[in-house]
């Protein structure tokens, strides 16, 4: 069993992430690159670089799960699973007491309930609009001429944050433009944006409920200001993975590993 390796390839709308694990589930390497315009090419590049990092070759990877929006375009995958299931399994691997996963990805936010094995029990997602997602923050960072790091600071502002609607990215952007025109301090706007996403996530959490520990995944978990506000709103401490972006890929790798193991248990036929 010593030479078995498994990979998860998560082709998301903004980034493509790969995780490689060995037969025991130990993480060997991870990569994150921007997806760009060609998802299948991004998958190839990220996969090759993760293999190199782990000092392996393509041939030794036993099974590969593709996930994320571009999962259908990963020609070399041996299986496909939605990022919703993958985030559940990934969060369970990192924080085994996780009962609820909040994933704020590039163009989707999800709240996922999982059982004690990391299997998805129920989930809810944002609707068609990208408000409350990573894309929303990107649009706003651009408008405010800030980079994503600057948009991430926890802020202790005096008085109320600027009110920004949480229903639509395009409307929210015009609200930001009017706030700038009124010389509203940028930190009040940033605080308002963080709050807007938190409100959006809160309504999803409320619709599905919280069970067990709550783990936050997806690139937006890097936004420290948002994490502070979300914890405040939920009244609990969130588990934040070291690499929140690769939780889906990690879950994918574990799903590949589980599928391989159960196929062994079932025998060769």
């Amino acid at each position, binding site marked *: 069993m010593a030479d078995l390796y498994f990979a998860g390839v998560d082709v998301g709308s903004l980034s493509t992430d790969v995780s490689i694990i060995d037969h025991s589930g130990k993480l060997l390497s991870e990569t994150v690159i921007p997806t760009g315009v060609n998802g299948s090419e991004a998958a190839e590049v990220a996969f090759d670089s993760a293999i190199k990092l782990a000092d392996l070759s393509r041939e030794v990877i036993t099974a590969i799960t593709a996930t994320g929006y571009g999962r259908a375009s990963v020609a070399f995958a041996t299986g496909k699973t939605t*990022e919703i299931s993958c985030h559940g399994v990934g969060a369970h691997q990192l924080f085994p007491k996780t009962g609820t996963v909040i994933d704020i990805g590039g163009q989707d936010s999800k709240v996922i309930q999982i059982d004690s094995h990391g299997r*998805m029990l129920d989930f*809810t*997602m944002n609707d068609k609009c990208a408000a409350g997602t990573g894309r929303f923050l990107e649009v706003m960072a651009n408008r405010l001429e800030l980079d994503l790091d600057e948009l991430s600071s926890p802020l202790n502002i005096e008085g109320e944050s600027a009110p920004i609607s949480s229903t639509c990215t395009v409307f929210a952007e015009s609200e930001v433009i009017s706030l700038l025109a009124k010389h509203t301090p940028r930190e009040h706007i940033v605080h308002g944006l963080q709050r807007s996403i938190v409100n959006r996530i809160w309504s999803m959490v409320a619709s599905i409920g919280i069970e067990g520990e709550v783990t936050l995944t997806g690139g937006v978990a890097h936004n420290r200001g948002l994490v502070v506000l979300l914890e405040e709103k939920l009244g609990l401490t969130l588990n934040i993975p070291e690499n929140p972006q690769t939780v889906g890929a990690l879950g994918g790798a574990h799903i590949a590993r589980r599928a391989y193991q159960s196929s062994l248990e079932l025998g060769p036929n």
Partner: protein
Amino acid sequence: MSIRAEIKYKIMKDYGAPALMALQDFKRRKPRPIPEAFGPPLDSNKRLKEILSRHYFLSRYARGVNKVAWVTSGAPVELLRAFDFYTIYPENHSALVGAKKQGADYCSIAEGSGFSQDLCSYARIDLGHMLSGKTPAGKLPKPDLLFCSNNICQTVLYWYKAIAHELNIPLIHFDAPFVTTEQTEADINYMAQQLQDMIPILERVSGRVFYLDVFENILKRSMETSRTWGAILDAMKAQPAPMTIFDAFGHLAPIVSLRGLPVAQDYYHILMEEVDTRVTQGIGAISDERYRLIWDNIAIWYKVRFLATFFAERKMNFVTATYTNAWAETTGYLNVKDPWNSMAKTYGQIILNNNLKHRLELMKKMIKTYSVDGMVMHSTRSCKPYSVGQFDLRKAITTDLDLPAVILDADIADERVWSEQQIHTRLEAFCETLEGSKHG
């Protein structure tokens, strides 16, 4: 009534319509191949298409022979039938436009005239049709009368008012008080009285006299037709189910828009017989039915084929829906001996005019009796009365019955609201939950 129009109508009925049917048959001589995931298609599909094509075709020659009424799906149409109105159902027509993926075109015509994009797409498509004359049915007759009931939503009243204003024609509104707990005697009396008050107006508009025995016969026919429809839906309790709910969405058209006419009554006998035979012979609508699902809300007309295929390929079959059930649920109240009160009970208590507690109990019952494993709820932008409350219903059902469920954000007929990739992920994740729950 003009003699010329009558002769033209008769020629079209006896020669034009059969010629059209023959032409359609010729066009369909090479049937589309059926994907492996599906069982054999229903033979009744052909008859259904004939009935609907004929109905829309003859409608263009109806003016001058019969008065034309545009009617909402929940209105007590039996009363209009007693005056021989040729009835057109704008909701059915809008669904047809939606199914042809032309909804956005028609909607934008209405939007260009100032109607909000937040308005129901059935209404926008109908208004778009009225303003432009466009229709996939060739041509629709202008109405002499509008007949609506707020038992399905409040929008219909304002939508029909806009048409009445534009065309300067009478509008009759049947006001059905919402059932917050139980229907009261006062509600029933109020509705029964309205129906009787409509008679002189309908006599004036139609130029025909009301005969109680004619009306009673129509009521009897309508009752019998709805019961047959209910029995057809009941047959889907069989495993495997002889139809999918996507079939039923199509076969629903006659009970909605031709209710009370012999053609609908006869049609459901044909369909019933076919469905019964399939049950006896164990023929399923999909080749391998492993999971049974319930659908909530109106169909997503432009994606019926996509959804049917998506689920059939995963061995999942929709065996029941609150939507198709709506035309069978309350017809048990109809009683020829007490026509006015019984119509008030039937039309006043339909699902969209009834409280959420009622809906929850109804859905739980359907889930149990149809051996359902999972639930798909369509939260539709167009229909607020149907969509509000779905989050609470979902929570109650998933908690009490431990049933996996998913909500799809889409629209009934405006395809611009559809986000393919997001829906796909949501549906696949739902299937993963369902498979996990059944196989533990």
